Structures are given as C-alpha cells and as structure tokens.
C-alpha cells in the first residue's frame, strides 16, 4: 500500500515537472522573474506593482520614455500584464516616431511588446481607456508600428511633415 502511494505520488510529480519543462521550452522566459511570473500567472496569482505602473504612466505622459519603461519593467517584471506591455509598446512608438522618418529599431521593439501584450490578453484583445492616446487598441498600435517600418512610395510624400504623432 505504501509502495503504491509512493509510485502514484512519484508519477504525479514527474508529470508536473515534465509539464513545467515543456512550458519553459515553449514560452522561453528570458529571466527568473519571467519564470516565476509565468508560473504565478498560470494559477491566477500574478499581480503587478501599481505604484510602479503609476510612476511609469507619469513618465510616459511627460515624454520620458526610457524612464517610463524602467518603471514599467518594475511594475511587470514577468511581462505578463497586457496593459503595462501595451504602454511599453506605445513608449517605443512615441520615442521612435519622427516627422520625416521613424526609428526602425524602436518600432521593432514596439511590435515585440505589443505582440507580448496580445499574447497574454484574454482573446488577444486590448482596449485602453486613456484620453491622451491617439491609438487605443493593440490592433491600431501594431498597424501603426508596422507601417512605420514598411518602405513604400507614400514615405516620399512631402506632406508627411504635416502629420502628427498619435
């Protein structure tokens, strides 16, 4: 009886361990914070740091994007919160936006961030109720970032200098 219990417990532990290894192989966390964040998120126990998020939003609205991303990283170390990742992506957009041309590297990082946000959002849908933003959904933001790194004839239109940052 004792042997049977040991074998059942051992099998359950081995399956759980194997599932964890499969999860890290698929999700490819880049830090221990992402590993622990992913595990706590899988049981619904992940919480972001609200104070750090507010700090990040304050920096973001003051156009201090590097500082904003540092605060967002503190708020969401595991990159599991859709709203925070949306603002991270938006910070890349605003920092990389230029009247004549955009910074492709920053825009690519923005696309990666908005993809992360969509991956962890329920149904991949993100709508942000923020009056200060010109793009309030992840789909709009991604399209804008994608357009920024795409080369096309309209890039040479001189009227581009009149467009506004969203």
């Amino acid at each position, binding site marked *: 009886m*004792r*042997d*049977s219990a*040991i*074998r*059942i*417990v*051992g*099998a359950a*532990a*081995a399956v759980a*361990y*194997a599932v964890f*290894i499969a999860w*890290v*192989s698929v999700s*490819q*966390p*880049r*830090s*221990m914070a*992402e*590993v622990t964040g992913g595990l706590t998120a899988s049981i619904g126990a992940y919480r972001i740091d609200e104070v750090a998020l507010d700090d990040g939003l304050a920096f973001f609205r003051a156009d201090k994007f590097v500082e904003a991303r540092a605060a967002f990283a503190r708020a969401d170390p595991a990159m599991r919160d859709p709203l925070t990742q949306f603002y991270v992506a938006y910070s890349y957009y605003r920092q990389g936006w230029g009247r004549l041309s955009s910074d492709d590297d920053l825009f690519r990082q923005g696309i990666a961030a908005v993809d992360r946000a969509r991956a962890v959002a329920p149904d991949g849908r993100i709508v942000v109720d923020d009056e200060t933003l010109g793009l309030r959904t992840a789909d709009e933001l991604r399209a804008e970032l994608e357009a920024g790194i795409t080369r096309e004839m309209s890039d040479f239109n001189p009227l581009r200098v009149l467009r506004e940052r969203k």
Partner: protein
Amino acid sequence: MTAVREAITLPMVFLTVVLLAAVRVPGALSFEPPSLFSLVLAAMALGALVQSGTLDSNRLVGFRRSGLERMSGTIVVVTMFAATASIFTLVTPASGLPAVAFACFLFVSLLLVLSAAVDRVRLLRLLAVLLGSAFVLKFVVLAALSTPAEGSVTRALQVLFDGVTLGTIAQAEVGPATGYLAFIAIALYLTGIWMLPPAGWVIVRELRADAPGAPRLVEAPNGSIGTGRRD
C-alpha cells in the same frame, strides 16, 4: 531497487538533467530543446545501456511486475531517454564544422560501444570519458576560441584564426554560467545512470585450462597454492 528510488529519485534526477541541459545563459536566459540527431544518439545509448546490463529492462517494465510498477519503470525509461538526448545536445556545438565533427564523433563512439558489447562498469567509464571529453572540447577549448578576446594582440590572433578557418570553427558565446550548469547536468546524468537497476548477470573472462600459456594452479613445496604457466 526501492520504490522511492524508482518512482521519485530517478525521474527527478533525469528531469533535472533535461532542465539543466536545456538552459543557455549567454546574457539572457533561453531554453534549447534536444535536437533531432540527439534522439538518434539517445536511442543508440539506450541500446548500449541494455546490452551492457547497466539497465535491466525486466526490472523496470517486465511483465511480472504490477501495473503501477510498470508505470514507474516506464517513467524512468522515458525520462532517462529524454535526459540522454538533452545531454548529447548539450555537449554538441551549435553550429559550423565543430557541430558536424562532434556529431560524427559521438555517433561513431556509440557504434563502437555497441559493437564492442562492453559490461556495465566499462560502459559507465566510457560514458564518463565520452561526455567529459566532449564537455572539455566544447566548454573549454571551443569557448576559449569563441569568447571575444580582451587584449588587442589576442583579438588580432582571433580574427586571424577566424579568417584562416573561414569562420567555421568559432561558436556563439555560451557564457560561463552555461558551462557550470552543463558540468552539473553531466555529473547528475552519470549519477542517474549509475543508480539504474543493473542486470543480474556480468561479463566474465573464461580461463581455458588447456590453452597454451594459460595460467594454472600449482601447489608449492610449502603447501601454498599459486599460479604457474602451462609449458
């Protein structure tokens, strides 16, 4: 073999090997699953383990065992196979000429082990030497050639070496932490293999008394028994 060792210790050891062998820490954390070729090498290694008596399949998944016991045995075999594949992926360089050379080296070595039909002790020694030498070549020699040099002369020599070898030898930087984790993974893997239930037989050398030059037992004048040679 106790139930704890079979159901808990061995699967945990082998799964830890899988995890440690998959971790790469060159800057940020990443996880590399076993390559397709390492599955072939692992199948060959599994054959060698059974052939040498290092792993007695009847003591793990034999039909005389109960359903629960066979389930535990199957988990041990599956996790050991995964650990073996992960270890071979770990000690094989990621790209270039070294990747091809290491793959051939490991493949031929395992073929030799299979054709030589060695016993448990010799197989354990062979595995330790095989994995140890591959570890040294990848994480010490190749890593030293691929790590960005600090001095300008060393850097110039490194650039020259890359030029001469057309960049086929240099590897992506593995990071020192990966090497330490790899060492732990290999040590843990060998420990796990040593803990497997061995077969109840051993390979012995037979002494043929009628062979020329064969040693034979002789009685000395003082009555003690020793060995002598047949004329």
